[in-house]
């Protein structure tokens, strides 16, 4: 019985190809967008939940406060992991991983295997217990012992594949500029989304013995991520208090021993590992963290896209079925029962929804690589669908499609098949008669649904416009220095480079394509260090934390940072052995210095230095933040970066000269360099990512809503063909009649625009306020968004209206 209904259904759909394709396309696109967003959200929620006992794994974060200024960071001292494990039995396991800045690459990041260099994007140092907590599956080696011995290295499967192909890696040697490592294990991180992003780990025992000893006593040297695994019974809140009491005492002893005075505290906090992916506002936290608000927005958008697609689908289906009222009448006259009519319509709907379902999933599978590149994830449909929650999702989606089919299929079956055949055969078609002018009608319902679609479309478009404008603004706002044409070269980790710096710099300057060269430990857009300073000497002054840049002589001249008073470091002679500082305006205010020039600042080891200059504030971190206090310490020997200003007209020549000079000075080392303006752009990479997601959302939403309006207006205008003809006969011109038809839709868009604008304003203002520097929210963004949608709606309806109006009136007025 059902078989014959499906056969008939196929014929009906094939006969109405345009309708079938339009509806299929709308529904498919809706499902594709929905599934992608689901995959993204599911992946985000699955972050760090794949570890055995993940509910008991915590990262230790630290609030570090001096001089009344508190900073939260994800970093802790090296000694913390052992200290906790040794003093608290509640802690079953602890481990630490060194902080590494993936953008700060040097010779250590590239390894040599059989004469070929391989770049390891994210290399870190970890202790022997890393894989006890992070229980990756090992394809080679033993997770418990792989990091015990010095110069051991563990690789990810992807990295191993890159270097060794399908050959086993265990026991093979990899060389860096300074050492040789032995591969002791290969771990598989596929489908284990985590805030940990390392591709390789080196054993902590590889560190120099002297360095380890220093690290093991210093509470202020924050350079490690510390993770702990608690016993089941631990009350983390109470435990935190006990730990802090303990560490306060330990730090107090340490401070006393160092003979410094600090007006501040250090507070530890335990963060559940599955929360890390959504944590914001911690310094030195994982780059892959996302703002959970974005996730909510995505979920809302996804639901709306699915809703819109469903609305369109039901709208089309019911509109279409009205056209078939006559067919239903004939069938009823022939003796069809309502049940049979229902089956007929539901089987048609089922064919359509399931075709859409299958095509969408295939499209998702095909487009996954593109999507992964966009959101920077490794998501696979198959894996996600066959994990626990994925199965539920797949089932729910299927159920939803079924419901959609039942709903859209039963409308004609219920409503139309309940009509008396004589009503529909009577020649008028089905008209929902209105007794009052503004009563609720099927047409009214459709209009309402169209307004909802336009709410979403306009909202997303306005948001996209504003996000675009803001990102354009932050990328182009003058920062207070000249970021163009500056090449930043990462110096080798090999300390012998310090001896070669002078020669290297001199050799660089020999070419006319190079305008100026400077050295530094940090630059705008890069991580800044922190140092403790006080305005009085260490016995009577209180220590305060300042952002610090250790720089060489020509730093300010090169970056063109304007001087307010005093002098640049370039005025200091090379054999002057006193410490020299330059402050920015914010630091002068922060330290309450009335006459900064010539006054002294003290650092913890009772060292003092003279302030010789004050520079204007410039934005050295992202424009999300105000300019913070910053101190420059003249230290020509501390060279993390070689900064090169090149002649823009001789760019190629400059880069070639740079490479050649590098090769001469640092034989066998890969040169890592970046343009400063590019690096600064990466400060907004998560904003940029949001922009591109919003851009794609807009496309989806515009497409679906335009499709919806196209189909719906086609139907509604066709339904009004008779009215149009009457108007023509009464002397209406094409222009007048088209205006009559289009006017209504224009009104709908305007209403939608007015309704959604305050909502967008509310949310987008919040987002803009996350920037210390942002554009003003002008009304024109809203007008532009509405006008854009208005145009799309206008032309969609115009197409339909014109084709209808151009018909001769007599065609529609033919007698029924």
């Amino acid at each position, binding site marked *: 019985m059902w078989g014959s209904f499906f056969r008939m259904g196929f014929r009906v759909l094939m006969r109405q190809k345009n309708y079938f394709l339009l509806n299929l396309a709308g529904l498919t696109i809706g499902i594709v967008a929905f599934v992608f967003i689901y995959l993204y959200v599911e992946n985000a929620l699955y972050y760090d939940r794949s570890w055995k006992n993940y509910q008991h794994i915590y990262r230790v974060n630290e609030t570090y406060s001096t001089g009344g200024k508190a900073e939260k960071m994800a970093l802790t001292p090296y000694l913390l992991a052992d200290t906790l494990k040794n003093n608290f039995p509640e802690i079953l396991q602890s481990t630490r991983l060194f902080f590494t800045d993936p953008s700060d690459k040097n010779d250590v990041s590239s390894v040599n295997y059989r004469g070929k260099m391989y770049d390891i994007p994210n290399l870190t140092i970890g202790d022997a217990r890393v894989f006890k907590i992070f229980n990756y599956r090992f394809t080679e080696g033993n997770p418990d012992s792989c990091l015990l011995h010095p110069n051991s290295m563990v690789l990810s499967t992807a990295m191993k594949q890159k270097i060794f192909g399908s050959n086993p890696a265990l026991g093979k040697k990899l060389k860096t500029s300074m050492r040789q490592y032995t591969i002791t294990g290969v771990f598989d991180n596929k489908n284990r989304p985590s805030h940990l992003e390392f591709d390789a780990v080196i054993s902590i025992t590889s560190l120099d013995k002297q360095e380890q000893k220093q690290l093991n006593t210093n509470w202020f040297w924050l350079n490690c991520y510390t993770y702990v695994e608690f016993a089941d019974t631990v009350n983390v809140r109470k435990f935190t208090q006990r730990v802090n009491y303990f560490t306060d005492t330990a730090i107090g002893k340490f401070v006393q021993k160092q003979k410094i005075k600090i007006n501040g505290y250090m507070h530890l906090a335990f963060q559940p590992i599955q929360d890390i992916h959504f944590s914001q506002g911690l310094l030195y936290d994982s780059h892959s963290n996302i703002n959970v608000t974005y996730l909510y927005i995505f979920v809302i958008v996804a639901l709306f896209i699915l809703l819109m697609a469903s609305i369109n689908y039901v709208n089309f289906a019911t509109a279409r079925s009205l056209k078939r009222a006559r067919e239903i009448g004939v069938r009823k006259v022939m003796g069809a029962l309502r049940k049979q009519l229902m089956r007929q319509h539901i089987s048609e709907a089922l064919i359509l929804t399931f075709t859409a379902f299958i095509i969408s999933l295939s499209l998702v599978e095909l487009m996954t690589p593109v999507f992964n590149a966009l959101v920077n994830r490794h998501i696979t449909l198959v894996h996600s669908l066959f994990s626990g929650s994925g199965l539920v999702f797949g089932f729910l989606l299927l159920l939803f499609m079924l419901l959609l089919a039942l709903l859209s299929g039963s409308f004609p079956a219920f409503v139309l098949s309940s009509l008396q055949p004589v009503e529909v055969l009577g020649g008028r078609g089905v*008209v929902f*008669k*209105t*007794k009052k*002018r503004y009563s609720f009608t099927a047409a009214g319902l459709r209009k309402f649904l169209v307004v909802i679609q336009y709410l979403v479309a306009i909202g997303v478009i306005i948001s996209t416009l504003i996000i675009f404008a803001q990102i354009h603004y932050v990328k182009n706002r003058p920062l207070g220095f000249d970021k163009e044409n500056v090449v930043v070269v990462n110096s080798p980790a090999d300390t012998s480079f310090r001896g070669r710096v002078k020669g290297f710099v001199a050799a660089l300057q020999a070419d006319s394509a190079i305008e100026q060269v400077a050295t530094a430990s940090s630059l705008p857009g890069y991580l800044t260090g922190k140092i403790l300073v006080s305005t009085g000497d260490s016995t009577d002054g209180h220590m305060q934390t300042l952002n610090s840049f250790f720089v060489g002589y020509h730093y300010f001249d090169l970056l063109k940072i304007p001087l307010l008073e005093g002098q640049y470091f370039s005025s200091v002679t090379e054999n002057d052995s006193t410490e020299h500082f330059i402050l920015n305006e914010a630091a002068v205010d922060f330290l309450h210095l009335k006459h900064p020039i010539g006054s002294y600042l003290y650092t913890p080891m009772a060292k003092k230095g003279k302030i010789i200059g004050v520079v204007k504030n410039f934005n050295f971190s992202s424009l999300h933040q105000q300019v913070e206090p910053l101190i420059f310490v003249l230290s020509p020997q501390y060279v993390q970066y070689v900064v090169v200003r090149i002649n823009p007209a001789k760019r190629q020549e400059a880069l070639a000269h740079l490479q050649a000079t590098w090769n001469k000075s640092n034989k066998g080392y890969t040169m890592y360099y970046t343009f400063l303006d590019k690096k600064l752009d990466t400060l907004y990479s998560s904003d940029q990512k949001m922009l591109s997601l919003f851009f794609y959302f807009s496309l989806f939403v515009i497409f679906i809503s335009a499709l919806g309006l196209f189909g719906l207006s086609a139907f509604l205008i066709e339904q009004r063909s*008779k*009215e149009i003809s*009457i*108007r*023509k*006969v*009464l*002397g*209406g*011109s094409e222009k*007048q009649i088209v205006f009559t038809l289009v006017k209504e839709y224009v009104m709908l868009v305007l209403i939608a625009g007015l309704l959604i604008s305050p909502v967008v304003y509310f949310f987008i203002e919040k987002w803009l306020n996350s920037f210390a520097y942002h554009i003003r929210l002008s009304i024109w963004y809203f007008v532009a968004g509405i006008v854009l949608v208005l145009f799309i709606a206008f032309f969609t309806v115009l197409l339909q209206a014109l084709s209808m109006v151009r018909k*001769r*009136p*007599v065609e529609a*007025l033919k*007698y*029924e």
Partner: protein
Amino acid sequence: MIETKRLKKVFKSADIETVALAGIDLKVEEADFVSVMGPSGCGKTTLLNLLGMIDVASSGSYRFKGEEVYSLTEKQITRLRKQNIGFVFQNFNLIEELSIWENIELPLIYQGVKKAERKRRVMEVIDRLEISHRKDLLPVQLSGGQQQRVAVARAIVTRPHLLLADEPTGNLDSMHGEEVMNILDELNKEGMTIVMVTHSHHDASYSRRIVHLFDGQIINENLNRV
């Protein structure tokens, strides 16, 4: 006022040609009242549509007030129709979303008549056809006879020289039909030219002349009541 020569209309579909009108020569003088009669499918409505310029003949000539209609552009035809012709249909063809008043006002809007003048003229026909108390209702709220009065009001509000009526009483009972015919008769007596398609000999008896169509051709014309 109207003169057609060898007016032909052929409908083509896929591979069948249907001849609806096979060369009509018809003359209608000013202030005439012509009934077109004939069996279903003989081409009555097609002829009326051609005369009303809402359809175009396949061949032949159509002179309206001395002007050759088929030498005019689409725009000029529209203007000619707007200024001279009113329509009354069997099924009224009122616009359901518009009130009675708005329905009657619509052709005036399309003619670009100013608002005050529109009001005056709509009021005039509404009074005349005794529907003023229903002017704010929607068409569906009226009986068939009332709807047809509205349709007539809408057709004559522009003061056309020619009124084309396609079975104006076809959907009405005899009492309401009589009312509508009396109105048409009155209009004709005031000088309006009327061409009416009808099946009803009774209705035809109101006209001055009857034209019989059969298979797309005029088979005879006779004067009535003169």
